């Protein structure tokens, strides 16, 4: 294996986290190597981007599952089997990572999230949190996070409006909210009638032209309907490729190597010494020594690389000891109500990934949980992403899924259906975790990540409750026919559609219960930083990227401190 010259910092994965770290470090004069397993990307690649089949259904921008996937089982009694083709999680690949194919909904988590254990116990007593739910505080408060959120939002140009019920903001959103369409106005009117406080979803699809503090100028969203699963041909959707990565490149301090798949982190048991990566075109392997190793791949590979490299202690669900793989969490998306209109057509073929309206009233602890058998909550919302025709064939229940009736009904309602949706928090449970699969391997012979996960009682109760709210709002809007999904079915790796995976390398104030400190520096190897939604001790009801971005800025501050003065930062 060819050993390359040692570098100060090596970054593994060039999505949002890797891009932000690269940008902040290179601006400070630090030379970094960025390793990305996929290809390079640019805006003009997407002139043929409005291709639903290629980008959405053939997963053009996603990880090639023939090389690597995850295995899943709902519980320890089952044998975990590989996700052989895309059903649920769509894992990004290439420069920009998931930051290229995301929808762009960019929230902050709530003050409640960061101190969830303390605040819940303070308000509802010590017994409110059942012992099997591993809720813990994040080790820092919302007020400490606020400046990093502000920095991320300014860099990305997030469009939105201030919400009274959420954490205090030092500044308004850098750009105003997205346009309101008739369906969003219907949601707005109905929720106001019911006494709620609707607001436009904060969006990384720019509502107006914007120049960020790095001098990057971008144009406004055209509502063309191709965000989720797609790259933006305008650069209107904030993406590392049009924000932080060009800034890092311009410094001359970023050595970005694409088609470079990191297989393991080299270490002496106390510190990392570098990484081994393979050129994905030739298969040749390289050793890249480094003073600091920064893992910024997706949740799954952050966890898998640590386990395969034997860094940190794997979580053991029987004893509760160990931290790597602990507190894996997802979200619950059941509970929605669908409105069918017989005589109204909306221009639903247009839209944007973060075009939507939501009420804050049932998020976090913004409503009383004293008599409820679940904690946290959900964002209740109507969105208008653009109803592409392969993916959207709404039919009232009871309609066959093929044949004459299917065709008739799916065409009848193609422009005459929208939803009041619920995106709920999923709280960590002792039996939900990530570890290495004993059987299945990747193309390099390394074990795949095994996910043991199912929705918990808490999740199911939350969905039941939220389904009543979505139904109430749908009825207030009024439609010819309303259907409500009242129950959360078991987790299905082939069907559920959400890529908001969190946990596995969680942050905290205590090395016994967390893997990284609040700078995302590993307790067990102080020159390893593990950045991403893998650091979330639980998943909130909001989309994760805003918090992931804020944490990346905090981590970059930590890494710069560490370069000045090595050792534990806390």
């Amino acid at each position: 294996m060819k050993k390359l010259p040692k570098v100060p910092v090596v970054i593994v994965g060039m999505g949002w986290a890797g891009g932000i770290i690269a940008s902040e470090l290179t601006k400070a004069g630090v030379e970094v190597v960025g390793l990305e397993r996929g290809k390079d990307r640019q805006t003009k690649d997407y002139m043929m981007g409005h291709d639903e089949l290629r980008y959405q259904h053939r997963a053009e921008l996603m990880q090639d599952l023939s090389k690597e996937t995850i295995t899943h089982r709902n519980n320890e009694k089952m044998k975990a089997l590989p996700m052989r083709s895309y059903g649920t999680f769509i894992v990004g690949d290439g420069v920009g990572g998931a930051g290229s194919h995301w929808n762009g909904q960019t929230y902050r988590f709530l003050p409640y999230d960061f101190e969830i254990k303390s605040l819940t116990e303070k308000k509802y007593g010590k017994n409110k949190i059942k012992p099997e739910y591993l809720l813990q505080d994040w080790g820092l408060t919302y007020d400490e996070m606020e400046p990093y959120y502000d920095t991320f939002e300014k860099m990305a140009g997030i469009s939105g409006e201030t919400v009274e019920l959420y954490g205090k903001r030092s500044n308004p959103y850098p750009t105003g909210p997205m346009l309101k369409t008739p369906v969003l106005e219907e949601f707005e009117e109905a929720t106001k009638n019911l006494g709620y406080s609707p607001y436009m979803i904060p969006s990384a699809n720019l509502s107006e032209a914007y120049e960020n503090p790095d001098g990057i100028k971008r144009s406004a969203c055209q509502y063309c309907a191709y965000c989720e699963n797609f790259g933006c041909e305008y650069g209107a959707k904030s993406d590392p490729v049009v924000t932080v990565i060009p800034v890092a490149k311009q410094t001359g301090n970023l050595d970005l190597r694409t088609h470079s798949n990191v297989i393991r982190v080299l270490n002496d048991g106390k510190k990392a010494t570098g990484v081994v990566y393979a050129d994905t075109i030739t298969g040749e392997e390289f050793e890249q020594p480094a003073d600091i190793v920064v893992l910024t791949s997706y949740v799954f590979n952050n966890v898998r690389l640590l386990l395969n490299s034997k860094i940190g202690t794997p979580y053991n669900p029987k004893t509760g000891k160990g931290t790597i793989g602990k507190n894996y969490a997802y979200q619950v998306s059941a509970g929605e109500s669908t409105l069918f209109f017989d005589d109204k057509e909306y221009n639903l073929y247009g839209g944007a990934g973060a075009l939507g309206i939501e009420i804050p009233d049932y998020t976090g602890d913004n409503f009383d949980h004293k008599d409820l058998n679940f904690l946290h909550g959900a964002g209740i919302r109507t969105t208008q992403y653009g109803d592409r025709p392969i993916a959207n064939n709404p039919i009232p229940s009871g309609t066959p899924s093929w044949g004459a009736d299917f065709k008739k009904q799916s065409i009848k309602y193609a422009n005459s259906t929208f939803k009041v949706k619920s995106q709920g928090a999923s709280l960590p449970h002792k039996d939900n975790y990530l570890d290495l699969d004993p059987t299945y391997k990747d193309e390099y012979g390394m074990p795949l990540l095994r996910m043991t996960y199912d929705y918990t009682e808490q999740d199911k109760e939350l969905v039941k409750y939220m389904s009543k709210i979505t139904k109430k709002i749908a009825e207030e809007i009024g439609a010819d026919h309303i259907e409500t999904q009242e129950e959360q079915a078991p987790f299905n790796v082939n069907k559920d559609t959400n890529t908001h995976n969190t946990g596995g390398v969680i942050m905290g104030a205590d090395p016994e219960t967390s893997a990284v400190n609040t700078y995302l520096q590993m307790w067990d190897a102080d020159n390893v930083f593990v950045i991403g939604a893998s650091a979330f001790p639980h998943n909130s009801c909001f989309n994760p990227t805003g918090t992931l971005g804020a944490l990346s800025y905090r981590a970059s501050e930590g890494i710069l401190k560490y370069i000045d003065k090595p050792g534990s930062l806390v």
Partner: protein
Amino acid sequence: MADKRKDTNEVVDSTKRRFIKNSGLTVGGLVLGGALGGLVSVNTGSKTNSEEVTGTPKADSNPNAALMFFTPDQHQITEAAAERIYPEDDLGPGAKDLDVAIYIDHQLASPWGGNDKAYMSGPFHKPEPTQGPQIKVLRKNLFLLGIKGLNDYSNKHYDSEFIELEGDDQDDILKEFESGKVNLHPGVTSDHFFTMLRTLTIEGAYADPMYGGNKDMQGWKMRKFPGSYMSLTEEIQKDSFVELEPQSLKDHMGH
């Protein structure tokens, strides 16, 4: 950008048959054209598209409408089965006239048909319902097993080729296949094939026409989907429905 947006198109649509008027494909309610129509008519050698057809069936000049994977027999069974999934009706053409079977042919011939980006390492265990399919058979082979299965079943139970059956009988067979009751091969049940047939049919009706289906964008026209527009900022704000002439990706070539 090649926006074909015209003020005249900005109308609140109340006619479900609008696409037919627009496409000019009917004479006395009979829908003409389609792959077979193209095969039997004379190739005029001139440039044709749906807007120019005025009542006389013209040759299908699209060189893409040919088989790269199926045998002619396999194509016919696929065409007949897909038509039952997405039939012709008063709204417009079905799978057959949308060239869905051509689309399916091209997909199965593509790397996707050979499971190029699917995880194919063993062992292949029987999954729980929550775990997603665990099938070792490649998509292209599963599909061939499926259409052979349809024809075998038809011959066995109806003493007829599948393509010769009445629609109702074809539907009954497809329902049997959907339920997974038919074994296509040791360890391969018919539901996996049926799911693929259904998905591919929907895709073939609505994917960009460059893939071989959605002939003349008629799949999009039926549901008033505009295909690929570079900006829809104005339209999404309108209270009334704005019907746009669809554009395919070809309209963006050369920009």
